[in-house]
């Protein structure tokens, strides 16, 4: 056996998955399927956002129903400068980081005083506030949104022009995010976040000011999600308040839960499954009966319900079960 490969089945699956993602543009080019690269790019952007949500939700127990707000913020941090013909990518990046961090700090400082359902409701309220703010900003297109004519430019650095270049920006950001979250949850800081999820009162009696640690975590998560939004703005070339609607936030939660909340690779596989179903389930329904196309949400919803009921730990949980089965049979 190759020693550098992880010993578990799930670990190997993820290694293969990342390797496939690294060469995906060539595969799609060879198969002459440029559309698939588009689909994959969008999926990976959402995976970055879902991974950032997993940091607070899966590891920290903070279920936010307003995380898509950060996607919108990131996208508008590209769109609004572009509206004034400012295409410098470093400016876009800087704005995204600063504005997402500020929004996370302000809303988190209030939201994190609450727990459970109240936290869900208050994060929803904040995201609705920023949603309607952008709807009412006529200057930047309001409801109709804004077209971005050129992508962020990083002079003397790496270009974002062309689908393949953009794909590698997205892929690199995803890898960075996964690595960052991995280091984070095993660090001193991460242990505090995970501990506070399981028993906050106990953490406080151990001397941890859990509120501050959680707020810091919330800000980190918001910034990562903002970066996903910046990439999405570049990818679609068209942005609108729709990106930050609560429906998007709900979908992010689904992606995390489907893949496996609280596991590093959960959101990535969850997003993959989500985007795949969203794309191909309607076609499958149409294949069964041409009039069923518009009812694809029904089996989609049923699948989600079944997964939540029976697939504890999501797709990652199922892979881990395979691990323990082979371990048992090996003994």
């Amino acid at each position, binding site marked *: 056996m190759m020693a550098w490969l992880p010993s578990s089945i799930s670990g190997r699956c993820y290694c293969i998955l990342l390797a496939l993602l690294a060469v995906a543009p060539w595969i799609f080019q060879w198969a002459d399927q440029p559309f698939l690269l588009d689909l994959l790019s969008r999926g990976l952007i959402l995976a970055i956002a879902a991974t950032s949500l997993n940091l607070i939700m899966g590891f920290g127990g903070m279920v936010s129903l307003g995380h898509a707000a950060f996607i919108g913020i990131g996208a508008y941090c590209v769109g609004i400068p572009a509206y004034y013909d400012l295409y410098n990518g470093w400016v876009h990046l800087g704005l995204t980081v600063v504005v997402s961090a500020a929004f996370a700090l302000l809303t988190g400082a209030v939201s994190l005083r609450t727990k459970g359902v109240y936290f869900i409701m208050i994060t929803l309220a904040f995201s609705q506030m920023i949603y309607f703010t952008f709807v009412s900003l006529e200057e930047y297109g309001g409801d109709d949104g804004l077209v971005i004519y050129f992508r962020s430019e990083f002079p003397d650095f790496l270009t974002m022009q062309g689908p393949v270049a953009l794909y590698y920006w997205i892929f690199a950001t995803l890898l960075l995010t996964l690595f960052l979250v991995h280091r984070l949850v095993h660090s*001193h800081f991460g242990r505090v976040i995970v501990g506070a999820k*399981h028993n906050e009162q106990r953490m406080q*009696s151990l001397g941890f*000011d859990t509120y501050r640690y959680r707020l810091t975590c919330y800000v980190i998560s918001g910034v990562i999600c903002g970066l996903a939004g910046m990439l999405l703005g570049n990818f679609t070339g068209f942005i609108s308040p729709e990106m930050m609607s609560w429906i998007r936030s709900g979908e992010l939660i689904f992606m995390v839960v489907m893949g496996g909340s609280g596991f590093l690779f959960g959101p990535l596989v969850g997003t993959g499954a989500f985007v795949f179903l969203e794309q191909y389930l309607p076609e499958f329904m149409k294949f069964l009966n041409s009039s069923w196309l518009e009812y694809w949400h029904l089996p989609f919803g049923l699948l989600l319900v079944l997964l939540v009921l029976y697939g504890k730990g999501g797709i990652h949980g199922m892979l881990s079960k395979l691990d323990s089965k082979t371990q048992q049979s090996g003994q």
Partner: protein
Amino acid sequence: MTKPLLRIFGLCKSFGGIVATDHVELDILPGMIHAIIGPNGAGKTTLIAQVSGALKPDAGQIEFNGHDITSLSAPRRAQLGLSRSFQVTSVFLPMTVLENVMLAVQGTDGHSYRFWRPVQKDPKMLDKGMTYLQQVGLADRAWHLAAEISHGEQRQLEIAMALAMNPRLLLLDEPMAGMGLEESARMIRFLAKLREQTTILLIEHDMDAVFTLADTLSVLVHGSVIATDTVKNIRANPEVQRAYLGEEHA
């Protein structure tokens, strides 16, 4: 005369119409094991919760080491050296035994805004964690999940975590709860040794344990302290016998 480590003045707390703490006055001297006994519902855990900062009192004042700590948060109090173990075992079940103790070490060992290096690869943290586990006799369980060890061992882990905070005052809320005879006896021996290290405020139902360990006893009935004295005098106190011991022996 030695100065008390913890002083409680006129502490009051009610929940709705129920008075849980009624003008409690208490002095805890350093180096002592001070036990609080009282029938169920006397307000013992409520009192501990107010000392540790988990509950805010309605009135009164708490002084620790000469400083007024009444308005300080639970984490601040923990940083100052007040450490609490819980009546209901509240270790972190999905973490390993060692991880639990290391988390407790982390709590009072500077800040935890360290984002990059894994705790598991920090030899200083591992060493400290193992030291406390050895002290309570759990070293061989270090790599087990806290959910996998026995109830008695979880209670020991609870104590190890309280110790890992390097406390000046240890608040122990029924450390023997749910333990078997042999485990209790071992815990009593262990706590007796701890006396040299730290001051202990002990709540316990097990009268044998209390009479063996405590230097001073306070009796709490309906939220108020009806007597504070040495073990011998408390046993002889007719009021206490009527209010508590008699009731139990009846």
